[in-house]
Each structure stands twice: as structure tokens, then as C-alpha cells.
């Protein structure tokens, strides 16, 4: 019966109701999109790491597993590594951060294909000269590139597109390693070394022996590295998500507070009637809180729907820079956030309504 009353109240004021739902839905979308982007983009980079096919990854001294753009590993290490037992292939890369989340990787195709089996070219082929660049299909699609064409704006100069590869391996943009080393003042230095081991059973032993020999270098088996690539391990991202969650709660709170507050004021008389019929404080509070809950549920559903819309837009507009994932586990979390905000926002107006004097409501218009 209360539900009927609540539903009718919401139907009675369709504009207020839909506006409230929309305003609650926006932060829900914001949260889902942000989390989806973080997870999607990280997963994407994890997928490319996995696609490399290496067993062990060596990172520069003092770096974390995510930091890019420095290349302080001396190239000599590659030679040393290839003489180690059980190691069948070694390939070094240089990574240079570009604007935004993009980066470009310098690669030595010959040693890299011994690790990965090489790239699969959709168009064109390997580097033929120092002006050549290789891009993946997503970058090519987003920027409308074809093999043999030219692309500008990367490291402040123009490149010839030597080939377009199938995505999901190593990087989206690649230059010959020497070229990138020289262009960024990292001649003779590497930012990451991939190692392939003869048999999976030997990986742990090789990692252990490398750790002993290369003191101070972070050395991960590929499995370890991939498990580290998660939102929680990226301090900036998880902090950012916390902020957006906080904003979501505050907006939910403010929207429902205002919406319920005005509607309670408009409904003084109805609340007086209910009280004259013997409705307790809890009964009246219950009505207001249920209304807030319904608004939150509506906002959550709308927010989820809108997150599909943002995913579509992102996939259409910038497939190479960002990947949004639909994060099912975050649906209930986002819903809970909307609900928290809404219930908090409904509490004071509800209390106000519950403690209203029925005589004043009924006797005076």
C-alpha cells in the first residue's frame, strides 16, 4: 500500500521525478565509465604484454611495473642475458610516453620475433628505413592510416607507415629501436627487456638467478607482471576513482535532498492527513525513504544504460587511446553509492515530514 502511494507520488510529478533520476544517473554513469575505462585500458595493456609471448620481464632500477618513458637499462645486459642457461631469446625495447595515455615503443624486430613469433601485418610490412613507423589496426582506424601513407605529430615529425599490424601485441605505435633511442637521447639504453625461457618449468629458477645477478632491477615473470596490472595498483587511478565515488554520493545526496525537501513542503497537507489517520513518524519517514530509494534505483538503471552509451561513443571515437569495459561487479557498487546518497538526502526531509504538526497542516491552508 505504501508502495502504491509512493509510486503515485512519483507519477504525479513526472518532471521532478525524471529530473531527479537523471541527476542521480549522471554520477552513476561517471563512476561506471571511469572504472570501465581504467579497467578496460589496463586490461588492454595487459593483453598487449601477454601478446608479446615473453616469460620474464626486466624493468629499470627503481621503477615500478607501470612507469614508462625512462630508459636506464644499459644495452649490454642483453648480451649478458643471452648467455644465461635456459634463456632462448632476449629482446630490449624503449618506451617513450606521448601525450595523454599514449606511448610509442622502440623495437628490434629481429630479436622480438624470436620471442613473439613476429607481428601479423594487415597491411604493409616491417621497417625498411629510419623514417618508418608501424601502427596497430586500432590506431590506423582512428587516424585513417594506410601502409605507405604518412603520419605526423609523433615526436614532432612525420613518419612513413611501413605496416599496420593486428592489435594486441606489445604496443600500438612502434619505431625501430635505434631511431627511438637516438630521438629521445637514450642511445644505448633500454626501458624494458623481454626474456624467453626454454621450458615453463624453468621460469622460476631463471627469475631467481637473474634477481641474484642483476641486483636492484625489478624482474617479474610474465604471470606476476600481469597480476600486478590492476586498478588498485595504480595509485593515481584508484585515488581518482575514490574522488568520483565521493562526488557521486554528494550529488545523490544533494539531488534527493532538494527534491524530497520541496516535495515534502508541497505535501504538508497529505502528511497531515496520514497523521490524522494514525500514521506514526516511522510510517511517514518510511514513505519518504522509499521514494528516495526508488529515485536511486531509477538513477542506477539509467546510469548503467548511459554507461553503455559512453562505451559506444568511446569505441566509435577513440578506439586506439581508450577502451571502456562494462564492469558488472561495479553495478551494485554504483547502485549502493546512489542509494547511500539518496537515503542520506531523504533523511532530513523525511524527519521533517515525520515530525510535522498535523494540526498546522490541516487547519491552515
Amino acid at each position, binding site marked *: *500500500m*505504501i508502495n*502504491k*502511494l509512493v509510486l*503515485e*507520488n512519483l*507519477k*504525479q510529478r513526472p518532471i521532478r521525478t525524471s529530473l531527479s533520476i537523471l541527476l542521480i544517473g549522471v554520477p552513476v554513469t561517471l563512476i561506471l565509465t571511469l572504472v570501465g575505462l581504467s579497467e578496460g585500458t589496463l586490461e588492454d595493456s595487459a593483453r598487449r604484454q601477454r601478446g608479446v609471448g615473453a616469460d620474464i620481464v626486466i624493468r629499470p632500477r627503481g621503477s615500478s611495473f607501470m612507469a614508462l618513458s625512462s630508459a636506464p637499462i644499459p644495452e649490454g645486459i642483453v648480451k649478458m642475458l643471452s648467455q644465461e642457461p635456459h634463456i632462448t631469446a632476449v629482446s630490449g625495447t624503449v618506451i617513450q610516453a606521448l601525450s595523454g595515455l599514449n606511448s610509442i615503443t622502440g623495437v628490434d624486430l629481429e630479436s622480438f620475433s624470436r620471442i613473439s613469433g613476429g607481428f601479423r601485418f594487415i597491411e604493409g610490412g616491417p621497417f625498411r628505413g629510419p623514417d618508418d613507423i608501424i601502427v596497430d589496426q586500432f590506431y590506423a582506424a582512428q587516424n585513417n592510416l594506410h601502409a605507405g601513407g604518412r603520419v605526423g605529430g609523433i615526436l614532432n615529425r612525420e613518419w612513413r607507415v611501413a605496416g599496420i599490424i593486428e592489435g594486441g601485441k606489445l604496443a600500438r605505435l612502434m619505431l625501430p629501436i635505434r631511431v627511438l633511442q637516438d630521438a629521445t637521447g637514450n642511445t644505448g639504453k633500454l626501458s624494458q627487456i623481454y626474456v624467453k625461457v626454454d621450458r615453463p618449468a624453468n621460469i622460476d629458477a631463471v627469475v631467481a638467478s637473474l634477481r641474484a645477478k642483476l641486483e636492484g632491477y625489478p624482474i617479474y615473470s610474465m604471470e606476476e607482471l600481469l597480476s600486478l596490472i590492476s586498478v588498485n595498483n595504480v595509485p593515481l587511478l584508484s585515488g581518482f576513482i575514490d574522488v568520483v565515488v565521493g562526488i557521486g554520493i554528494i550529488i545523490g545526496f544533494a539531488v534527493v535532498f532538494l527534491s524530497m525537501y520541496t516535495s515534502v513542503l508541497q505535501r504538508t*497537507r*497529505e502528511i497531515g*492527513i*496520514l*497523521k*490524522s*489517520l*494514525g*500514521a*506514526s*513518524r516511522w*510510517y511517514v519517514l518510511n514513505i519518504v525513504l522509499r521514494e528516495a530509494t526508488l529515485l536511486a534505483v531509477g538513477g542506477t538503471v539509467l546510469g548503467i544504460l548511459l554507461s553503455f552509451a559512453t562505451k559506444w561513443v568511446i569505441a566509435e571515437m577513440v578506439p586506439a587511446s581508450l577502451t571502456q569495459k562494462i564492469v558488472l561487479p561495479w553495478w551494485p557498487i554504483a547502485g549502493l553509492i546512489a542509494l547511500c546518497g539518496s537515503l542520506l538526502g531523504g533523511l532530513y526531509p523525511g524527519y521533517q515530514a515525520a515530525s510535522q*504538526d*498535523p*494540526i498546522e497542516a*490541516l*487547519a491552515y*491552508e
Partner: protein
Amino acid sequence: MSETVIQIEGLRKVFRVGKVDVEALRGVDFEVLQGEFVSIVGPSGSGKSTLFHVIGGLTPPTAGTVRVLNYDLAALTDAGRTNLRKTAVGFVFQKFNLLPTLTAADNIAIARHIAGRDHIAEDPEFRKVLDLLGITHRLHHKPAALSGGEQQRVAIARAIVNHPAILLADEPTGNLDSQNSQAVLSVLRDLNERIGQTILMITHNPEAAAYGHRLVNMRDGRIVQ
């Protein structure tokens, strides 16, 4: 011998408006027996509505003893008065005071729900009341689609759906034309005569007052004569 359902002695009610005390009731002595139909008349501001609000537990008395059934209203807490409204009294107001978003049937249903009686499916006695009120065929309409007289009869149905001992009607015909007034008044009389409903009715209209068995006159917060 009928039971006393309302017993009031020396009832005073003072409202504090800003820094000024407004004495709405200045010593009311009053008694009502079960099954009575009492008409209360008096000039505007004489305290009639306030008396109802105290009897119905909408506001506590300032001084004096007020007994409604077994409830001692001076001693009652907020929750106790809520309980009294829920079970012992039913209100009908001048403005029909139906919930505008609900149908007539749901307006009645919500009163049952508040009283925690909505699980009682059949109430043959109340069916009779609905027939007597002549609104059975209008129940699925919302208040806006009902005439004033129909709305007021729905309000009466809602007020007595939980079988309260006392029905308090505050100018129930104040907003009605004479034809609708007649219908509502005869319904009240029928309720009183056929099911023995105790009724207190405030009115400004001498014709309406004549429907009651007993006339009580109020002036300046007291009962006169």
C-alpha cells in the same frame, strides 16, 4: 445504560504563538455517551476545532482531564496519541482531505493499512457501510473525478473503516451545496442509527445541527448553557 466514551473536565488548551499565548480552550467540561450524535455550534474562533483536535489526539491538552475510551490524554505520549488516532477515532474535515494521488478505494485502503488491518480481507459490516454511503460504484475514481459530496462520503468511509468508537466531523458540509449536504448528513444519521456510530459534528448551519440528538454551544473557549 450507555457507556461514557468521552469525559472531559476543566480542559484548557493554550497555543503559544511567538511570545503571545492564545487560549483556545478555557475550561471545558463535556461528556459523551456511546451512540450519541452531538452537534457542536459556536462562532468562529470559539475553540470547536481545537476541542476536536484534543479529543482526537492530534494535540495534547494543556490542563484538565480528558478521557477518551480508556485513554487518559493528559498522560499520553506522542506515540500513544498516534495509537488513539489509529484505533479509537476517525476524522472528517471540511476540506475533504483525500489523498489526491490515490483512488477512493485506495484512500480507504491506506487507512486500513495504517491501522494494520489491511490483511483482514473481508469486512461485511463495512460493505454495508459503503452501500449506505452510496459510493460503491465510484471507488475506482481519483478524488478529482468525484463530486464534493462523493469525496466527503469517501472521507467518511475512510474515517470509519477501522470501526473507531468515535467519529469527529469538523464542518463536514461546510464546502457542499445543500443537496450534497443533505446526502452527507443523512448518511451520518444513518450510520448513527443503524450501526450505533458515536458522532460529534461541528457545524455553522442550524439545519445541519438539527440532525444531531444534542446541541452543544461553544463561545470563547467554553461550552455555554
